[in-house]
């Protein structure tokens, strides 16, 4: 097993104290950083003044086939001896509060429809509906020609999923490039990387909730991610390397850190799913591909950032130094490279990239939750392992493959709730035949 770069096991009590102090300060810093988010998490959307007396509701939007809202349409809901009534508002929305869940009969009063608008063919009116697991039931009435269920052809679907998968893969790559750099330079398999992903999205949500402008919130979140990377390295990992702690104990420490940070985030953020600003957007059509603008932006941003990382790694002195440290820390140190500062920069970069990936992931899902990072942690690992542990460009290729694979499995008939299984499965299969990954070297494996 490979030892850490500073492999000399010098036991220093001062170092121990530092570790403990650093953990405490990291926890405090996180508590402070996450505090605004908690204040933002509380206000729930207030329901309209009427219908407030019931917890359950039936609601919907009335729009004609040109998506214009229909105002003043009367809708009644009947069940047993209770009858609720609502009239659609200026934005076409209607909502009927009902005392109980169960089966309801919904009727739209066709005489109140604007002139020239009528229900689409095959739209049952009145119709019977039943509540599912939730307290709100939405009922959709289609008008005019109605929404023609598009028989999406296979090629079209494939192309759309391919682009979405590329977008997903590139955002995974942002996180995995950081993970891979950290692994390459320090040998640490960092299970807390998912929490760095979460932090980016949670910080953007927190800062936006403090009414900061969106761009500032994003920048602050990226800075926060970089800061977490720096604090982690300076306060925890560097002292551990100094002590000569083995790689396996460090891996277990990172698991403890992941648990602690995940629940600290939940402590302040709560268990609910929140949305970032501009999270909802209609799909747009670019050539043959339909994609949501958020996904398109995500694709462009991550592609540009990754290209930048590639240029830095290949062309600059810092990049060369990083690759040298990843290749052989002892030799790099001997040739005058400041290994510790390279590792520090790698941690900061890894933190920034992970939080950027987290922000994009929050738009891709969409939604921010306290465990969003740990949900994709294994996909990040899959990408890194697929590409070859410790190789940056391998991580990039591996992640893109994982992203595309995850999206494409749904095209080929795998259920949507199993789509991550395919990616994890393919990782295990690749390990069977090419354990060093796509770009990895044989020597790293054994």
């Amino acid at each position: 097993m490979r030892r850490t770069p500073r492999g000399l096991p010098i036991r220093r009590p001062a170092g121990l104290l530092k570790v403990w102090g650093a953990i405490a300060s990291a926890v405090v810093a996180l508590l402070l950083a996450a505090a605004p988010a908690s204040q933002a998490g509380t206000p729930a959307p207030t329901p309209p003044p009427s219908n407030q007396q019931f917890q359950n509701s039936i609601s919907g939007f009335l729009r004609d086939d040109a998506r214009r809202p229909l105002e003043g349409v009367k809708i009644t809901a009947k069940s047993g001896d209770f009858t609720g009534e609502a009239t659609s508002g200026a934005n076409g929305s209607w909502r009927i509060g009902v005392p109980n869940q169960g089966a309801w009969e919904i009727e739209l009063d066709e005489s109140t429809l604007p002139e020239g608008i009528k229900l689409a063919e095959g739209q049952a009116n009145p119709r019977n509906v039943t509540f599912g697991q939730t307290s709100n039931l939405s009922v959709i009435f289609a008008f005019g020609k109605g929404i023609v269920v598009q028989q999406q052809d296979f090629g079209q679907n494939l192309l759309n999923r391919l682009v979405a998968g590329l977008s997903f893969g590139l955002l995974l790559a942002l996180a995995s490039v950081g993970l891979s750099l950290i692994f390459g330079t320090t040998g640490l398999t960092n299970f807390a990387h998912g929490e760095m992903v979460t932090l980016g999205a949670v910080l953007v949500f927190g800062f936006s909730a403090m009414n900061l402008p969106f761009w500032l919130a994003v920048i602050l979140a990226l800075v926060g991610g970089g800061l977490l990377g720096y604090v982690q390295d300076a306060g925890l990992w560097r002292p551990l390397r100094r002590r000569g702690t083995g790689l396996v104990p460090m891996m277990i420490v990172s698991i403890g850190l992941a648990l602690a940070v995940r629940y600290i985030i939940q402590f302040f953020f709560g268990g609910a799913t929140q949305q970032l600003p501009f999270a909802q957007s209609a799909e747009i059509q670019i050539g043959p591909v339909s994609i949501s603008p958020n996904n398109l932006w995500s694709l462009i941003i991550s592609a540009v950032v990754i290209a930048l990382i590639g240029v830095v790694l290949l062309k600059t002195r810092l990049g060369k130094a990083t690759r040298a440290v990843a290749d052989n820390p002892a030799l790099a140190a001997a040739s005058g490279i400041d290994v510790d500062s390279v590792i520090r920069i790698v941690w900061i970069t890894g933190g920034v990239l992970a939080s950027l990936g987290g922000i994009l992931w929050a738009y891709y899902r969409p939604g921010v939750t306290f465990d969003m990072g740990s949900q994709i942690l294994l996909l990040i690992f899959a990408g890194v392992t697929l590409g070859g542990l410790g190789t940056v460009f391998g991580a990039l290729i591996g992640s893109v493959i994982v992203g595309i694979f995850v999206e494409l499995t749904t095209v080929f008939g795998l259920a949507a709730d199993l789509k991550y299984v395919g990616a994890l499965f393919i990782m295990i299969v690749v390990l069977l035949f090419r354990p060093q990954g796509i770009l990895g070297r044989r020597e790293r494996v054994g």
Partner: protein
Amino acid sequence: MDFGFILFSAAAELFSPTTAAYALAALGLAVHFGYSGLLNFGQAGFMAVGAYGFAISTLSFRVPFFVGLLIAVVCSVLFALVLGIPTLRLRADYLAIVTIAAAEIVRYVVTTNQLTSVTGSANGLAAFEGGFYTMNPFPEGTYFGMNNRDFFIRIVGWGLVAVGCVLVWLLMRSPWGRVLKGIREDENAVRSLGKNVYAHKMQSLVIGGIFGALAGMIFTLPRGAVQPANYGTELTFFLWTCLLLGGMATVLGPVIGAMIFWVVLSLTQGVLYGLIESGAVTWLTTVQAGQLRYILVGVALMLLMIFRPQGVFGNKKELAFA
């Protein structure tokens, strides 16, 4: 705040079936990691395989209890083989990633809506424990403040833990166990002595996995239900905390570790809830108090690993890593 009640419920955790399940699963991890140096981060997967293997064979195929038990064990052996074949020749952290991924695959597969008729998807399965409780030799009544069902499951659970401990103790002082410890210390040295390292690792993975599967059954039987949400990666990490608390290369360490884990969790919950209810702590909700406990688990895991990696009982010389 009722300290008597808090202490009583903490003491009740000492012998609860959940603690027994954790102890047994952690004992399996001790075989994997403490004695053989295998990084199994998928023990939750083994537990899920055991629990679902038993529940599905009981509910879908109406097999008797012991056949269900056998099926669960066979499933966990197969699971261990599937995990071991690609990874046991590779470096330790590959096994870590593959086991954690495989455990998640199991969880996704039992959660999917496609298989609802078999696995019950997110709601899980229930009412499969009848066969177990019909074997209850204790007539109805009160045993140490428990009804006969609770008493029976505790006897069986802790009986299994005791048998497991004796088994591990015997195995590890046998020549076979010495080879395992040798593999942990230096794989190449053992290989040069002509031992089949791969086969030994695989046997260790299978044995620890069977412990995990049995633990999964002990975990579900008193609940009378098995739900996929219980078998996430957190469960594995809690088991690791138990293992490291007690001492990884010891027989009794994982058991004591599981007891400490649950007693401390119960104590902190009781004290925190008591403080909140009495109004002494206002900056915390009861939900947050629950999360605070898991923050403590995470920090405890880090500190243990950094300052006392051998755990409470462990011997520093017997660490799976230097």
